[in-house]
């Protein structure tokens, strides 16, 4: 196998990976970014509404209020030290993006434009805050392109269209790099690095109805599971309330932030019943459940009653063109509706994975080891949607994901610099470093009767049917049994196309390995947690149970083992926000 050597390696070319890469590329160290797509095709590009930071450009604001909202939004499952860190760092991270050239929309006084978003309040639960910084409704696109451009300026080394296969670790557990496959040539490659960062994004393609890009297959999570490391809080998936019905494409919360609202078939603003105070801008889990209930109880719109109307025509054509041009475009293309004249048909869609690879607030991957439940894995970092730091807890607030990427991307980059300085010499590479990957590649050379595409489809159907907005023990266990059957079929799957050059069938097979790991971790963790918290709604356990469950779930692949660890309720400097009932 060919070998390339760098000081630091970033796996994933989205916002988190590129922000970390930039920190490293501006130093003297050699850094490489491996991405299975050209970096600006990463899913960050789809983020619409904005990035939340208490700049106070429109209205009084303080990061402490943002901190409170994030703790409450996450239903107290978020680690309060990490949340304080993120909300404190938010303004500087946003200003820095502006300095890099991000084309934020502007207020009349020339400052960055901010809009209201769900779950954001002033004064610890008071009036609606205006905190989410936006570049029209293309904030993710603007952010990703800006970071890519800065990396070009810093001469970061890119391995575009290389698919990462497995982590390489030595006997003491140090991470020494990854194995990867060149998609263009089909050649495997070993990339050595003293520090490796996973920024591989989420696995939302495990669900049938998803807002996620087709590339979101949980690749970093699969790599971590195969390395014998745990995943945290995988039962928590955010279902975004407003995906275009039947398609799944996202309609940003910014639509409701700008004054749009939801109507059932009777023309009722039903959110008044579910969240009398915040109404359409309650937490996403609250709104998604409300929509699901309206549809289930026969108040959905359309001939089949399977969606809800999102009305925004009252904003006026000019405001929609200025603030929500991308949404208008998506709606016309995918729903056949011009929102300047008629409501958009929407329904909940799988959107964001709150769980992931457990890390501390430096982005270091942590796992239970000799000295406690949170020992850093030397040389291994994770940031972004693939990581669980955990700032989003049981439910992420809109605008906090782009923030997570840049705050923790920067923090991880900084810590990696320290790590590289303290660990100046590469450790010796074990002889069998690439054996596991070679075996996986060889496995997909063998013929088989089952087809990858069919198994993938069935996996998505299973997760959609058994692990969506509402869950029960019986349904989850049925889902797990179906997954067992799918994995048995996967053992007999083979590729008809075993060619080398740009063989995307092989890539999809390798992605399916990862997606199965994500689905299993999700189902097993969801069965284990017998309470309802945030986005995890158990109909058989409808209440939050802080006595037993104010804890993080840790799932390990060996025998589907589930463990827990306490939530960090103590922030860095401010008072802890004590758990209380979560009402909007």
């Amino acid at each position, binding site marked *: 196998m060919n070998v390339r050597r760098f000081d630091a390696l970033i796996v994933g070319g989205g916002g988190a990976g590129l922000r970390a890469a930039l920190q490293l590329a501006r130093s003297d160290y050699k850094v490489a970014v491996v991405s299975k797509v*050209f970096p*600006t095709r990463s899913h960050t590009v789809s983020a619409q509404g904005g990035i939340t930071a208490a700049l106070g450009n429109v209205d009084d604001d303080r990061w402490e209020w943002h901190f409170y909202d994030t703790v409450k939004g996450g239903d107290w499952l978020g680690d309060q030290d990490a949340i304080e860190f993120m909300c404190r760092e938010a303004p500087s991270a946003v200003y820095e993006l502006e300095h890099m050239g991000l*084309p934020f929309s502007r207020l*009349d006084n020339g400052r960055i434009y901010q809009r209201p978003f769900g779950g954001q309040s002033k004064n610890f639960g008071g009036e609606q805050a205006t905190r989410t910084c936006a570049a029209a409704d293309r904030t993710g696109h603007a952010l990703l392109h800006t970071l890519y451009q800065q990396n*070009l300026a810093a001469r970061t080394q890119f391995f575009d269209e290389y698919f990462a296969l497995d982590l390489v670790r030595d006997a003491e557990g140090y991470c020494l790099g990854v194995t990867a496959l060149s998609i263009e040539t089909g050649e495997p490659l070993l990339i050595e690095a003293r520090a490796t960062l996973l920024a591989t994004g989420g696995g939302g393609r495990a669900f049938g109805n998803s807002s996620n890009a087709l590339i979101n297959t949980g690749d970093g999570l699969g790599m971590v599971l195969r390395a014998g490391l745990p995943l945290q809080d995988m039962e928590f998936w955010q279902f975004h309330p407003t995906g275009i019905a039947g398609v799944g494409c*996202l309609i940003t919360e910014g639509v409701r932030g700008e004054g749009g609202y939801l109507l059932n078939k009777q023309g009722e603003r039903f959110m008044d019943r579910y969240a009398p105070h915040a109404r359409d801008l309650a937490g996403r889990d609250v709104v998604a459940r409300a929509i699901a209930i309206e549809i289930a109880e026969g108040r959905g719109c359309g001939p089949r009653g399977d969606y809800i109307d999102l009305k925004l025509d009252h904003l006026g054509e000019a405001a929609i063109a200025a603030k929500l041009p991308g949404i208008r475009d*998506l709606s016309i293309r*995918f729903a056949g509706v011009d929102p300047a004249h008629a409501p958009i048909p929407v329904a909940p869609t799988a959107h964001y994975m709150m769980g992931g690879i457990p890390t501390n607030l430096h982005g270091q991957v942590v796992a239970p080891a000799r000295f406690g439940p949170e020992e850093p894995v030397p040389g291994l970092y994770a940031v972004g949607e693939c990581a669980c730091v955990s700032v989003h807890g049981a439910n992420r607030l809109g605008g906090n994901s782009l923030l997570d990427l840049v705050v923790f991307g920067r923090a991880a980059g900084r810590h990696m610099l320290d790590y590289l300085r303290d660990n100046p010499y590469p450790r010796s590479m074990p002889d069998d470093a690439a054996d596991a990957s070679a075996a996986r590649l060889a496995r997909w050379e063998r013929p088989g009767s089952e087809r990858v595409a069919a198994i993938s489809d069935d996996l998505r159907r299973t997760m959609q049917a058994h692990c969506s907005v509402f869950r029960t023990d019986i349904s989850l266990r049925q889902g797990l049994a179906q997954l067992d059957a799918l994995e048995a079929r996967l053992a007999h799957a083979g590729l008809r196309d075993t060619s080398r050059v740009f063989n995307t069938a092989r890539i999809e097979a390798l992605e399916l390995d990862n997606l199965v790991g994500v689905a299993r971790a999700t189902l097993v963790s969801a069965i284990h947690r017998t309470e309802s918290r945030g986005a995890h709604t158990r109909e058989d356990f409808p209440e939050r149970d802080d006595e037993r469950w104010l804890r993080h779930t840790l799932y390990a692949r060996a025998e589907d083992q589930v463990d827990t660890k306490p939530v960090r309720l103590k922030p860095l400097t401010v008072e802890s926000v004590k758990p209380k009932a979560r009402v909007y």
Partner: protein
Amino acid sequence: MKFRLYRYNPESGVQPRMQDVELDIDPAGRMLLDALIAIKAQDETLSLRRSCREGVCGSDAVNVNGRNCLACITPLSTLKEPVEVRPLPGLPVIRDLVVDMEPFYRQYRSIRPWLVNDEPEPEVERLQSPADRALLDGAYECILCACCTTSCPSFWWHPDTFVGPAGLLQAYRFIADSRDEATAARLDNLEDPYRLYRCRGIMNCVDACPKGLNPTEAIGRIKALLVKRRV
């Protein structure tokens, strides 16, 4: 529906060919990408790029019935049968619908696509008026899909020397940005018979852009700035 797909696998030793495919699919509400994915589910040897499937990542640009477009936002109901799907013209084909984008990316990099401002950084944002910010509308939204550049005959003849509409639009995005200080260097970089002036204003790029952007107009503005600084 009937499709004709460009097929080429460099390992097969077989010349590129057009393959006729019939697919049982209801075109209502479906996009071309849905059809290509369905075809790939039947015949996994078909290779194509795709990611966001909603027209914002720029992965799945292809040439359909002679026009460049993004497969994921091209409704099947608008296409005449047989739907002829080819890789983007003017770039080397790697396999099937996948082209080597490097000549396109190289031209993008050549315009130094990043904001340059060497003034001391304030601890808050740099101010920009809504009017100055509005100058970026129509320029920053480019998704680097290459639909425009690969529909441009000047780029077909001069891929090494002509920046092409996408690269020039991005050059204009930075020239137009009130925060950028490198306008003179950016204009110098383009003042060249090939890099800029191979644009003959035929506007294929405007016709091809799936985001409704207008590179020809941006190129015109760059030319105007060059004239202005001469006189």
